[in-house]
């Protein structure tokens, strides 16, 4: 039984679509990322899973409990940690009073450890805390009862880079101990650093689910090469190159096989060569360049990695 099993989950606010026909499964111990711009439906999906919104159609299970049944969902929530994107904290209460209350509602086995780890001053009024420190309060509340499943909505918004690192380390530790994580973000780097698989949400629809590895490979390789010869642009305008720039060095994104690249370079005297993974942003942006039709086609292969090849085919085919 997957930790999260989402079946055609749909939520409309009146006539406005929040999410539509969202299906995916997150296995035990997996870190799954929801990636999409603000307003794409990430928060709606998470809040529907938690029962804050009742689905218009479709359904889901969390830790094997039906989310449309309040009694069952409550049992699941006992074992869930939730971090909202914009946590509603009582600004006129101290962090201690708030965490005491949360502890009374959900337990607090690891509260002291987390408070110390994030350097939180519990005696201060939440209203007097910085955005980052408020986020820490919500983080402690989400993690302190050792949940089996973490639902984290934009978890690092407001955290400085150092704390983002600390947060990532905490998530990794929990995952090592068997915790399952669903994390939403519009920051690709965060998702890439933490997640095993990524679901891309656009306009309420889950347009693709890929492993982070597949997403990386879809982005191709960033190639920079310096050769002895004077090169013409035409020499590199072959199947597999994108974003070609020809100058003192030649740089391009290579989306083909390595063999073909080596064949291409074989015709030159190579002085310097650098091949790195293309930034994930590039791969990600392919989901946002308006090619809805193709995105829809990859949805079918949502829970296995088979769509990766299709994706690569698509990239080649489009050129």
């Amino acid at each position: 039984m997957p930790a999260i099993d989402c079946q055609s989950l749909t939520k409309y606010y009146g006539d406005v679509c929040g999410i539509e026909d969202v299906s995916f499964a997150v296995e035990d111990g997996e870190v799954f990322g929801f990636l999409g711009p603000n307003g794409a439906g990430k928060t709606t999906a998470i809040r529907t899973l938690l029962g804050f919104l009742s689905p218009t159609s479709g359904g889901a299970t969390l830790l094997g409990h039906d989310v449309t049944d309040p009694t069952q969902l409550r049992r699941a929530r006992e074992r869930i940690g939730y971090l909202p994107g914009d946590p509603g904290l009582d600004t006129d209460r101290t962090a201690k009073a708030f965490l005491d209350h949360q502890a009374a509602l959900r337990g607090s086995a690891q509260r002291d450890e987390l408070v110390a780890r994030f350097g939180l001053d519990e005696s201060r009024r939440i209203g007097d805390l910085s955005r980052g420190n408020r986020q820490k309060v919500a983080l402690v509340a989400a993690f302190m009862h050792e949940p089996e499943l973490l639902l984290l909505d934009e978890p690092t918004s407001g955290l400085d880079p150092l704390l983002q690192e600390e947060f990532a380390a905490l998530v990794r530790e929990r995952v090592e101990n068997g915790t399952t994580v669903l994390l939403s973000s519009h920051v690709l780097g965060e998702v890439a650093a933490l997640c095993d698989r990524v679901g891309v949400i656009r306009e309420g629809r889950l347009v693709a689910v890929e492993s982070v590895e597949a997403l990386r490979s879809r982005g191709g390789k960033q190639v920079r090469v310096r050769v002895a010869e004077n090169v013409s642009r035409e020499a590199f305008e072959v199947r597999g190159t994108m974003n070609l720039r020809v100058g003192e060095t030649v740089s391009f994104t290579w989306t083909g096989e390595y063999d073909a690249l080596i064949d291409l370079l074989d015709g030159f005297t190579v002085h310097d060569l650098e091949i790195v993974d293309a930034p994930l942003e590039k791969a990600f942006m392919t989901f946002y360049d308006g090619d809805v039709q193709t995105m829809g086609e990859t949805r079918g292969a949502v829970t296995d990695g088979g769509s990766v090849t299709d994706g690569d085919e698509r990239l080649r085919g489009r050129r």
Partner: protein
Amino acid sequence: MSDRPAPWLAIARYEAAGRARGSAVLTGLLSAFLLLFLAFYPSLATSGIDLDAYVEAFPPAFQEAFGIISISTIEGFLAVEFYQFAWLLLVGLYLAYLGGGTIAGDVASGRMDLTLSAAVPRRDVVVGQFIGLWSLIFLLNLILPIVAYAGVLAVGETIAIERLVAVHALAVPYHLCCVALGIAVSTIFSREGIAQRVALGALFALFMLESVAAASEYDWIGWVSPTAHYDPSAVLVLAEYDFTGAGVLLAAAIGLILLAAIRFGRMDLTG
């Protein structure tokens, strides 16, 4: 998990603690208000003006609204100048306003997401919020009779303790009903400010309805208003204790909380 309190109790405690300072301030202000009015009484009593004749000239609806039976005695004076106005109307409206802010406010601010992400049944939230306002009601109705009694003695008058105790004991069901009305309204409107104003406006409209209806042949219509079941003037001036009214108010409070729990149990948390 067994050492954790029931969710409704945890919520009630947290809410009550959050309101502690406001409750103390309100109690202090109302005490000052009461003492201020009492300070006027000696000059009024010795002025030689027949106040009862004066107030009898008021229109019946006005007399009803302000529960005017007699104003020349200390009981009548307290009833008209303080209990009918401050206790029935001001405190009632304020409690309805606070009740209106509970659920709607938590949903709109996102606090409800954090509460309900724990294994908390929604009915526990409604019950917890309701009980969280009890401490304010109890504080007001415990401190003010003491202040009133001391104040009356201070201006050289006497008053039956029994009546003073009764006017506050019977105020409790009324105040509970005002809070319950606010909480019920709070589950209907998604914006805190609107829920608060509607709750306040609804209680005021019911009060007006009762006042106007009492002077007409359709006086039974006024029965729907909580204000019809708590009459501080009758308690203080005539020593008439309306236990049936108190029962009606308690039943109404429970009914409104049940309705709120049902409504909240089904609603989407959209602020």
